[in-house]
């Protein structure tokens, strides 16, 4: 069971990282428009012709 000593902190650290990533994305305004990005991905505007 000694394996828990480092596995559990790793699991928690990963979870907390995900939580912070979410908080960052929220602060970054990524939830302000839930419709647009689905269509934006289809736009070729950034492709150099």
């Amino acid at each position, binding site marked *: 069971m000694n394996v828990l000593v480092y596995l559990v902190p790793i699991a928690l650290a990963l979870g907390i990282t995900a939580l912070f990533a979410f908080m960052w994305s*929220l602060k970054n305004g990524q939830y302000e428009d839930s419709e*647009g990005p689905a269509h934006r991905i289809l736009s070729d505007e950034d492709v150099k012709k």
Partner: protein
Amino acid sequence: MYDAPDTIDFSSFVRPAEQGRASMDLALDGVDCAACMDDIERTMAAVPGVVSARLNLTTYRLRLIWEAEKTNASALIAALAKGGYRAYPFEQSRVEQEETRRTQWLLKCLAVAGFASMNIMLLSVSVWSGNATDITPETRDFFHWLSALIALPAAAYAGQPFFRSALASMRAGKLNMDFPISLGILLALTMSVVETALHGQEAYFDSAVMLLLFLLAGRYLDQAMRKRTRAAAGNLAALKGEIAQRVGEDGGLVTVPVGVLKAGDQIFVRPGDRIPADGMILSGSSEIDTSLVTGETMRTRVGSGAQVYAGSMNFDGALNVQVTAAGEGTMLDEVARLVEKAGEARSRYLRLADRAARVYAPIVHVTAASTLIFWLLMGAGAHHAIIIAISVLIITCPCALALAVPAVQVVAAGHLFRAGIFLNNADALERLAEIDTIVFDKTGTLTLPDPNVVNAGTIAPELLRRAARVALSSRHPLAQAVARLGVDATPFDQVEEVAGAGVRTLVDGIDLRLGHAAFCDAQVHQPSSPDVSLIYVRYGDQQAAIEIRQSLRPDAMAIVETLRRRGFDLHIFSGDRPEAVAPLARQLGIADAQGGMNPAQKIAAIESLRAQWRKVLMVGDGMNDAPALAAAYASLSPITAADLAQAQADAVFLSDRLAPVAQALDLARQARALMRQNLWIAVVYNAFAVPLAIAGYVTPLIAAAAMSGSSIIVTLNALRMRGVARKDHTERSAPTPLTVATQEHRA
């Protein structure tokens, strides 16, 4: 009302950004497909000086950032207009900012609760399977401590929405649903910590956090829906694009958005414009139509010194108006005072969920207490008895009960939103469902807000078509009513407007005139009723008198009939003259129709209905209806209503038709039925779970399963709600009303 945008001073909406840039938010109209987004962003990015253009497809708002030196707001709006998109600068209202802030806060709490419950569940499942097999007490303690480490801070953060609301309700002395929730969570956490310290087998960290997660999900969805509604309503308000001609210090005119007008400003109101703000006439005289203010359809003549109100239509003379704040003894002051008094009654409404909580909380707490005493009397140890009593509290912790109402609320608000009905108040649905009496205002509510031609059937179609086309070139309200009949939206090339007389042009070499009788050299026509306005048309030797008056909403007859058949008691309370109200009431078959009422009389009439234990729905649009809207049990306004009326209404509908009134009532009743069903589901769930808990059979595993099971059932039940199809609200008052109106005319 929407002027050529390049002459308007938008500077009040432009915010400075870094590096000499400027930014502005715009509400957009005419965006109906995803391809438009691409089109708009590309068009705007191509405008010299624009740094970035980003459209939000959820709120239909565009944020523009540009180099302040290279271009300006007006030019950008003109560029959008050229692409076919009507845009108007936009500023988030304080209420909307508050909603946005709260939505974000709830989302953060939800994220924390989600993180915590996933991690704790991981540990809990290990403990549960370990308990069945060979977990060592040391490992179990370690897992429990870890769970506590995650659960305590997470609950302290994510539980705030509930704790704060529970505290507030305790201070106010009336317990709401958040009180039993907070108590349940706190007790579950305390007991689990004590158990962990005593090396016990069972801890309820997972239940406490999962409860938070489910409830927060419900709250967040509810809040997100409300925010979306608020944003849509904000856009509509901005897109009205109301502008005013302000007289500058040098005496010149500056066109500014209405929002920036202040008391003391002097404004110039041209014929055909709506008066943009309340004020006093300094000079000039004119006939004004105050139907949006008082419901009166007869025009009144005003001169200098007269008080005028925002929303009145200026007909024939130019006015210089000094903008005033609400003065003593003016109608606005009176209305504001009545609104304040009338609104008090409604704030006392107790929501269904809170009423349930009032019954529920004491029962649960008494049950838990009796369980404790029962087990103590049975000779169980104090420790054991307390654990069982708290497990009763946890299992009854009102997960399903607390979700029962919000789940339905979210689904119903979504359906209403798609039907073009925007809820202003969270508890409006519940109140709408209880309505048994409906009071309509007449002008602008039963009738369309703008007057229409009523005798189109009696005029030669070709002549009428020409009249409609030439009318396109005039700003006069009567001409605009004629113009709405037209199918051809292109104005004639060279049209001459003769001030105070009419418009004229040459068609195929023949003189076409629309205007006064003398201007058109026409026989003076006797109007069929006193509230009819006349405009004449002459083309060569053909001539006709066109009658214009307020006409019923296209489906008013049908909807009123439907509502009556469903057993609603219908009334009309109007500020218009009784002789204008009576024929319309007869036509609709509404027996109680009262005219000539002032705001205080409307309130008194509603109060007397309430005294008969009626639940009154007020549907009205005028400024004079605002107090009645606030006093009624529930209220609806069309989107064309005066601002003050819209602010008091529980919901605003976006349509030329009356159908949304019936739809809103239908959906509200459906929603209430589902809410009640959900509450019963919660009761049945408790009927099974509580005896088990009292008997001491509830383990954390059973608690977790029961909690998620009941929540899912309640949510699925809410999703059963059927929506209403959105009637094409975009259809403007095209010729359709004429059929109804002409019938009325012939009757």
